[in-house]
Every structure is written in C-alpha cells, then in structure tokens.
C-alpha cells in the first residue's frame, strides 16, 4: 500500500492496485446503475402519476395507496429488504434505487398532472375529440416534464447514495467489481494504515452527489414556479 505518488495519483490498495483506475471504474458502475434505475423510475412514475392524476377515481386511490406504503420505509431499510429478497448484487442495488425513488416522484408527477388536467387546453383537446392516449402524451406529459426532469435529477443523487450505502453494507455490488460503495467499504478495513483508500472514492462520491444536487436546484429554479414546489 503506497500513499499517493507520481505513478499512482490516489495511492495503491492492499493488492498493490492503483486506486485511481479503481475509482474510475467505480464511478462508471455507480453512475450506470443509478442512471438505469432512475430511467425506470421516471418511466413508471410518469405513467402511473399522469394516469392517476388525470383519471382520478379508483386508479388514483390504488396508486396513491401503493406509493404511501413504499414511502413508509426509510430508504436504506427498503433497500436492505430488497437485497434480502433478491440476494446481494447489482440487481438488488438497481431494484432498491427504483423502489426508493418511485414514491416521491409519482406523488409529485400526480400532483402536477392534477393541476394540468384542469387547464383549458386539455378541456378543449377533449372536446375536439382527442382520445385519452393523445391527451396524455401530447397535452399532459409535456406540461409535467419539468417536474419529471427535476425529480429525476434529485433521484439520481439519491440513487448514488443508496447504491453506496447498500454496497457499503455488503448487500449491493459485489467485489471484485468496483463501485464507489464497494471501494469505501473495502478501504475501511485498512483505513488506519491507508486513509487514501476511502478518501479518494469518498471525495468523488460526495462531489458527484453535490454536483447533481446543484444541477437539480438549477433545473428547479428554471422549470418549476415557486408556488408548485414541494418542500423536500
């Protein structure tokens, strides 16, 4: 284990591997997993949120109940439950991120869809004979897209944190594959002798989450008027 030096900018680990390429691979794994999961969340939340918000009635009740149930679990607890069912691994990490991020996004998309459903342009589209799919895709979706974009950005930073936490506990991505959570977990073993093992991936993880949150704040200021904001 070497401290950071000219040939190995972030030091080397207990097997003599340079930490920098490991961190780069880890960022790739973490970002890929989180992005795929957030895409799944976005599609599902958009579909269910828009339908529930526009149609109301029993469908709305059902969707909101399910969302409420999922929302009752602290994020990492839900992630652990998923990992216990699916077994530790990438699939568990991906499914956890989806289940953790879906309740809030569905709620907010639905709230936005409820507001849009009462607008005149939707009424006039319905009166002029537009069918349901057309109304939803052409008129409602574009007007809740801002909410989806903002929440998707925040969901990405939540996803990175969930993957990190789950892998850190040993239930997410499995070594030798690198993810930021795995690297921090493994670095913890040799922390006293080689603090750079957790400093490198730790700083990268925090920087990634911070950067995505800043983008989210910027998007929110641009796309969502202040009154429609939720306090999160």
């Amino acid at each position, binding site marked *: 284990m070497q401290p950071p030096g000219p040939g190995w900018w972030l030091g080397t680990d207990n097997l003599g591997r340079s930490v920098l390429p490991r961190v780069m691979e880890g960022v790739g794994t973490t970002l890929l997993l989180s992005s795929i999961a957030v895409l799944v969340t976005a599609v599902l939340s958009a579909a269910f949120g828009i339908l529930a918000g526009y149609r109301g009635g029993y469908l709305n009740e059902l969707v909101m*109940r*399910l969302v*409420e*149930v999922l929302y*009752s*679990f*602290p*994020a*990492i*607890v839900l992630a*652990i*439950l*998923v*990992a*216990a*069912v699916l*077994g530790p691994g990438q699939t568990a990490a991906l499914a956890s991120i989806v289940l953790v991020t879906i309740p809030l996004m569905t709620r907010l998309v639905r709230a936005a869809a409820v507001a849009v459903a009462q607008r005149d342009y939707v009424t006039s589209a319905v009166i002029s004979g537009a069918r349901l799919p057309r109304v939803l895709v052409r008129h409602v979706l574009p007007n809740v897209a801002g909410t989806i974009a903002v929440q998707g950005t925040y969901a990405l*930073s939540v996803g990175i*944190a969930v993957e*990190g*936490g789950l892998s*850190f*506990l*040993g*239930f997410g991505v499995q070594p030798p594959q690198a993810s930021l*959570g795995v690297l*921090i977990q493994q*670095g*913890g073993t040799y*922390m*006293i002798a080689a*603090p750079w093992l*957790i*400093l490198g991936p*730790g700083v990268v*993880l*925090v920087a990634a*989450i*911070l950067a995505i*949150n*800043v983008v989210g*704040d910027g998007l929110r200021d641009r796309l969502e008027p202040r009154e429609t904001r939720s*306090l*999160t």
Partner: protein
Amino acid sequence: MRLLMWWSGRALSSAATLLGVSVLIFAAVRLMPGGFAETVLGPFATPEQKAELAARYGLDQPVFVQYGHWLAAVAGGDFGFSMISRQPVGAELLARLPITAELTVLAVAASVLLGVPLGVLTAVRARPTGGGAAGRLLSGLGVSVPEFVLGSLVVFVFSRYALGLQVGSWVPLTRDPAANLATMILPAAVLSVFSISVTARTTRDAVMGVLVEPYVTAAVGRGESPWSIVRHHILRNAATPVVTLIGTTTAYLLGGALIVEHVFNLPGVGSYIVQAVGRRDYAVVQAGVLLAAGVFIVMNVLIDLLVGAIDPRLGVMAGRRA
C-alpha cells in the same frame, strides 16, 4: 366535528397503510431464498420430515391464513424467534431500541437547535455575499455527504489521533450517563449533519416566504426590533413546513441510524437488522423492517397533530395531504 372526522379519517388511512406495509413485508419474507424447512432441518431432510415440520408450524395452510396468524401474533407483540440465537426477537428489539432512539433524538435535537437558527439567520441576512452564501454552500455540502462516508472518516480521524473521544465502543446509559454521552456524541453528530442541513434549508425557504408578507413590513414600519419581529411574526408562520420536514427527516434518520450504528459498532436496532440480513435470519429482518416502517407512520400522524396545533387552519383543510 369536522376536525374530529378529519382525525379519524387520518387514523384510518394510516392503519390501512400499516396493513399494506405488513402485507408487503410478509410477501417479501416469503420470497426470500432458502425455505424455512431447509433452514431448520438442513439439506438432508426427508420429504416426510419436511411435511411434519410444515404441519407443526402451520406452513401447509393457505398463505392468507398464515398471514392472519402472523399478523395476530405481531399485534400481540410476538415477533417470533431468531433462527440464529433462538431468542425471542421482540425482547432483543426492545433491548436495542433505546440506543437507536437516543441516537435519533440527539440528531433531531441538533437539527432543531442548530438547523432552525441557521436557517433564520441565512434568510434574514439574505444577501448573495458573505454569511448567506457560505451557509448555503455548507448546507448544500451537508445534504450531499452520505453517513457511511462521513462516518468512516470520523472513525478514521478519531481512532488514528487521540482526540479524547472513543469510537467503536459503547457504554449503557444506565451505567454511566456521562460515558454513554461521550460514546454517542460522534455517531449522533454524523447522523445529524444531513438533517441539520435540510432543516436549515427548509427554514430558510419558509422564512423567506414569510418575509415578504405585509405584516412583516408593517412590523418593520412600527419600528419593532428585528429579534421581536422574528419571534412574534416569522417563527410561528414559518413553522408548518419546518415541523412537517422534521417528521419526514425522522424517517430518514431511522435509516441513517442503521448505517451509523453499523459504522460505529453500536448495538442498536439498525446493526441488528444489518447482521440479520447477512446471516439470513429472516424473523429478525421481518420484525426490524416492520418496526422501522411502523415508527415512521406513527411519527407522521403525530406530526400532523402538532402541525394542527400550531396552525389550526390546516387541520380543517382535509384535502391538504391528498
């Protein structure tokens, strides 16, 4: 009367959610790999032995009957036995709960005592330079640092350099309160960084929303001191979102406590759940997860009560949570 109706509706809806949570957990445990019979009898059990065991524990009955039995047992406080230690799970959870509760209470206290003043201060001095910007940057950083990263770093710093506080050990509150606090202060600090930052941000947004109200301008016009304006006109009006947030944050803290207990090696509910998942001790996972979700749901009802007491207008607006 309308208020009473609203409360009973709220309680009913929470009960329905809790029921949904229990169904989900029950289903999840059923889906976990490794059947009960295989776990208890080992891989070489005969089909007859398995059938006998299934009959003894009611596993040959329809799933919804099993669910009913389980629910009745849980409602009576019986969470079953740990497959590893063969001890009742309920007693173990009860013994560990005070540690998690202490950790969470300390973190919530820190959020209120530090987060709220910070938020008010950055809102009242909302100029883009100096303190305001520094506060925003700090709170932005605070919400971006996961507990496992910060926790690992704190453990490293305090175990490498002798800074007076022990990490990795724990002293019961009943034996020595001062020593207990000394072992809890670092985990609680790590846990509270996120909630302090979120509280500060939300307080800032809420206070800035109130600052533009005419009654604040009127108070300034009357020549009231800034402190008096904050105390009499701003705090109460900005309290609702902050109190609601603290309820939501508590749920987050329960999850965070799990990681923090794992990192700092504290014998709380969270580390119990983590160990149980690692050892496939499903009765413990089931009970622990149910407990976490149940506490969150109850917390939310309490927060609604509190918000209703702070701002009576909200209690009547039944559609608020729609």
